[in-house]
């Protein structure tokens, strides 16, 4: 094992670049997932005949598939039907699809935590259903949603490492590139990136727990 060689400034910089890619991909994916998951979550919450059922089926199927399969599918299978994306776009699409299904459930249960009387009150004060959701239900539900969304972001940061299979230059991939140079680097580099993931995710998990305590009343 060669810790000093492994932790050369060049290598550390390269890993840092990888981590920056991880964070970017994860952040973009969570934003898109929030929008897409929000739509599906509301569709399931609203209990519109047929539409809600279809939304439920889509969410359940995606939630119960391995993310790795979705990544492979977007990158290798979609080109067969004429949809070709680059590595970064494929990773973002796959992560967004998968995380949207997760967030849809979080958002739905957040909305469900708001007492039904709130809808009735909103409607009887003259707001439309959409307005009631947007101005009354959503702002109250979001307090319950934030902690699990932060937890989901932790999963997302970890899951982004799966994009190593399509050679997305994120932290895991860059670690492998370094490891390919010298077998004595392998253990030191994995220890290093494990610590990086751990520190960032641990801080996030503390934030999630704090938020949970705060929103608990």
């Amino acid at each position: 094992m060669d810790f000093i060689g492994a932790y050369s400034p060049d290598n550390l910089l390269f890993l840092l670049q990888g981590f920056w890619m991880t964070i970017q991909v994860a952040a973009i994916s969570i934003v898109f997932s929030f929008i897409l998951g929000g739509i599906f979550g509301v569709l399931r919450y609203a209990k519109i005949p047929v539409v809600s059922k279809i939304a439920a089926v889509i969410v359940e199927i995606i939630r119960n598939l391995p993310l790795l399969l979705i990544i492979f599918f977007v990158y290798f299978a979609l080109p067969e039907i004429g949809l070709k994306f680059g590595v970064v776009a494929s990773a973002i699409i796959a992560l967004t699809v998968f995380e949207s299904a997760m967030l849809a459930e979080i958002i739905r249960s957040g909305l469900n935590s708001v007492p039904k009387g709130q809808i009735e009150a909103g409607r009887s004060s003259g707001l439309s259903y959409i307005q009631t959701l947007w101005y009354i239900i959503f702002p109250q539900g979001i307090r319950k949603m934030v902690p699990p969304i932060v937890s989901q972001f932790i999963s997302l940061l970890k899951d982004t490492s799966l994009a190593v299979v399509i050679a997305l230059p994120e932290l895991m991939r860059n670690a492998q590139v370094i490891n390919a140079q010298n077998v004595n680097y392998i253990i030191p580099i994995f220890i290093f990136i494990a610590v990086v993931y751990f520190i960032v995710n641990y801080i996030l998990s503390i934030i999630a727990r704090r938020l949970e305590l705060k929103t608990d009343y």
Partner: protein
Amino acid sequence: MLDFTILTENSDMFLEGFKNTLYVSFLALIGSFVLGTILAVFRIAPIKPLNWFGTAYVEFFRNIPILIILFFIFTGLPVLGIRLSGFVAGTLALMIYTAAFIAEAIRAGILSVPKGQMEAARSSGLTYNQAMLHVILPQAIKIVIPPLGNQFINLVKNSSILTIVAAGELMYQGDLISARTFVVFDVYIFVAVFYLIITLPLSYGVNRLEKRLAKSN
């Protein structure tokens, strides 16, 4: 439309992968259940160093990607002279990772058993270990089963990463078949269906259990 001849002509490989995925998931479930139970008891036991170890294990492995564990075992350990097959390395990685989550689930279950139960058991002459084994754990298990079911679903999904170390499970067989037939789209759809055959009934069952448990409380 999907080309079902791919499914029929390669049914032996699909089934082989399906079998291996189930096998790996079961092995890892049993291993992580044993390890997770020990860790959970460590975290609760009235012995400080055990608490620290349990907490450190759970927090560390929950916050790093499972791929690091897999790569560490599969490519890092050989540097130290420990060479494991992809199958063993993959199963171990799944076990080590999932144990952290199962430990948390079991700990929550144990903590949900009223304190008086432990005191009552202790004052009726049982030792701490006996009280844990015969009084607390049997009561905790009821609460623990739904989250355990969820972890099993995650295990099945996570077992797909074994394809990276060529361990012969479902995802890997899918990759082999698509490399042989030059068809990716249809093969991945079939692979997805095989995963769903395992995960959808499980998640339905977990949902039912959770609802029933919520009612009985």
